[in-house]
């Protein structure tokens, strides 16, 4: 949380010298709080006050980039504890751990499967983000595997190794690819800080306790490494939730810089459901990166969908452009289906129309992203609004029949809509799932 104008005022000289261009120090402080002016405008600021004010100008949780190009992952820079307070900004990276002690062809096979974990839901691309390579043998094998993986994927990489020599070779191979090093601990921090600095890559700071983690990031920052990700490891699920919550709270509410970094969680469960459920838990509760082992596509899809849900802007529902959408090889006999421009409504209807294999027009009425029932209750999906939309897109000139299909949930508007639009109204199913059989039996009477 930023400092208030009054908090800032306390740090100013309070001389009202006007050299900053404002009549009083208080007025200047108010502008500073709004980030409308620079603190450099005050020539009499103590260095201590300046440091404090500069620190508060930085985001409370640092934004960290892993990988490069279009597939790079950015995590951090969050502002709130609960999504309804504003929104969660940077969806956590989901990555897969790859052991280096399997055969080359197995590795290629897995990398190919991971590359293929791409889905589309309600018009958004859902993709996994990272591949983490874990060293089990010698440095040479590790580097060989890093080479294989890196030449077969565009995803960001995580290097999981305690062996600074092996890491150095790997970082040499991955120059410019900005991998994440996993991980620095209290014991090895000097060597790992050196590597992170030399290759300008982000680094995981790992500890068994929160306090230790905080000490470690301070130590690493002293050594000039501030592109950090925190891991507090080895605890059962409720304890981890507590730690993740504390990291987020202390960074946001107490401006604790030593914890102002994204968090990483490695899930070490062999049972697929247990692993996915635990991953889902940390996606909901503040993790910046979640590393898992399973690459079953149906399981990964469920996780990516949850991430999409939690990171949707609660103030701005996902919308599509209000339009007349022709689906399939439409003719002037094709049915015209009315829905809202709420993405979820539209894409659900679209999916069912496609499944029915009956070419149809879908009209999305501008309901400001509200779903059918909500929009109807808020008077954004009224006979008048629908008629306006139907006329705007020239439906009369496009189809020869004079019928519109409306969602079953708004059956009550059919009379009024019929009068206003001049179309015959057919009440469709309540749920989009009923569309295929509805469309197959649809006859204009």
């Amino acid at each position: 949380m930023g400092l208030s104008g009054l908090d800032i005022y306390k740090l100013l000289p309070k001389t009202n010298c006007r050299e900053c261009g404002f009549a009083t120090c208080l007025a200047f402080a108010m502008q500073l709080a709004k980030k409308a002016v620079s603190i450099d405008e005050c020539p009499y600021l103590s260095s201590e006050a300046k440091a404090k004010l500069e620190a508060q100008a930085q985001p409370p949780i640092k934004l960290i980039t892993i990988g490069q190009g279009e597939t790079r992952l950015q995590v951090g820079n969050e502002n709130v504890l609960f999504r309804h307070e504003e929104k969660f900004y940077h969806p956590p990276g989901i990555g897969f751990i790859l052991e280096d002690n399997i055969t080359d062809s197995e590795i290629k096979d897995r990398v190919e499967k991971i590359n293929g974990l791409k889905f589309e839901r309600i018009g958004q691309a859902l993709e996994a983000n990272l591949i983490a390579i874990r060293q089990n043998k010698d440095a040479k094998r590790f580097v060989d595997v890093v080479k294989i993986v890196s030449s077969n994927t565009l995803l960001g990489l995580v290097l999981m190794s305690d062996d600074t020599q092996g890491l150095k070779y790997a970082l040499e191979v991955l120059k410019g690819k900005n991998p994440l090093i996993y991980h620095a601990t209290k014991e090895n921090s000097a060597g790992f800080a050196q590597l992170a600095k030399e290759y300008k890559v982000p680094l995981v700071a790992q500890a068994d306790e929160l306090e230790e983690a905080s000490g470690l990031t301070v130590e690493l920052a002293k050594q000039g490494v501030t592109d950090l990700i925190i891991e507090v490891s080895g605890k059962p699920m409720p304890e981890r939730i507590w730690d993740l919550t504390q990291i987020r709270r202390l960074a946001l509410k107490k401006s604790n810089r030593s914890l102002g970094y994204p968090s990483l969680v490695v899930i070490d469960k062999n049972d697929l459901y247990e692993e996915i459920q635990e991953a889902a838990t940390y996606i909901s509760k503040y993790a910046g990166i979640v590393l898992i082992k399973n690459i079953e596509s149906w399981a990964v899809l469920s996780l990516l969908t949850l991430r999409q849900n939690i990171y949707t802007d609660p103030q701005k529902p996902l919308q599509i452009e209000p339009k007349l959408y022709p689906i399939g090889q439409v003719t002037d006999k094709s049915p015209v289906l009315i829905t809202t421009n709420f993405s979820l409504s539209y894409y659900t209807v679209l999916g069912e129309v496609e499944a029915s294999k009956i070419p149809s027009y879908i009209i999305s009425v501008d309901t400001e992203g509200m779903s059918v029932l909500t929009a109807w209750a808020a008077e954004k999906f009224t006979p008048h609004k629908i008629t306006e939309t139907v006329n705007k897109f020239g439906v009369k000139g496009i189809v020869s029949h004079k019928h519109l299909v409306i969602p079953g949930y708004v059956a009550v508007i059919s009379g009024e809509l019929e009068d206003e639009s001049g179309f015959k109204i057919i009440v469709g199913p309540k749920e989009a799932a009923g569309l295929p059989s509805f469309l197959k039996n649809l006859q204009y009477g």
Partner: protein
Amino acid sequence: MVLQLMTERWTGEVSAVTIGAAAKDGGTRAYSIKIGGEKSLPCLFKEGTLPNKPQVAFEVFDVAPNDWPNEVLKPYGKSVNDPLEWAQMCVQDFKARSLCIRLLGAHPDFGNKSSEEEAQLIKKLLEKVSVPLIILGSGDDAKDNLLLPAISEAAKGECCLIGPAVQDNYKTIVAAALADGHCVIAESPIDVNIAKQLNILISDMGLPLERVVINPTIGALGYGLEYAYSIMERARLAALSGDKTLASPFICFVGQEAWRAKESKIETLPEQGIIWEVLTATALIQAGADLLIMRHPKAIEKVNRYIDNLMTNDRTQSSK
């Protein structure tokens, strides 16, 4: 360097609701289940006690369901044609701790069974199984106003959770619950204000808030889950901050929503539906769900284990 943690001190708590009456409480259930009572946000044991685990109830219909995908019908086999057999299977084979019976067959479009017929069914069900019951009407307001009082009377003294009561139609069911000693599901359409308003209306009729459970009407994973997720977080924060009218436990109809998802109906990917139901439940538990109504035995098994992993905590043991 000592790290100062930041601990919230909540002044409010969620009311604890008991479902099912054993012999000592004038009923015939083998035990009762308790939900709610939280003095902290989900899993944050260090800030307040979370005395009761979230509970999962198996959902059973009085008529064979017409819209369940094969994958979720399969485990029950032929028993879905006989609610008594189905209920017994849930309890005996799948170790259900509680059951949620939906009287869909009373709906004018799905059989239009009479209230007397359904009341008889509930009586038989109470004899057949001894777990606490959640009983839902048919979903048709006019019919439910006749049906639910009859059901309530048939289960008098068993402390069932019955519903739904909605803003436009709550009086009959609340009066019945008051007369026969049941708890009520207060259903609101993903809206904190309506949830609060309805709770006030219900408590104005004399039903204590300790006998009310909120149904915030959830969406499945990928189908608006996040709306209910945030409504539940907001209501729970208000409850912990002292707003008694929002301090009811949540009931979430996870199975109903998850098995409607397109992803759950892919015959070639049977596990996708299961994980859809599992993750919908998982996320809602993180938002504060107290009672989850679910359908697939495997999904329920996974969610129960998750709940055990979440709630197995030394601090809760010592606070009991």
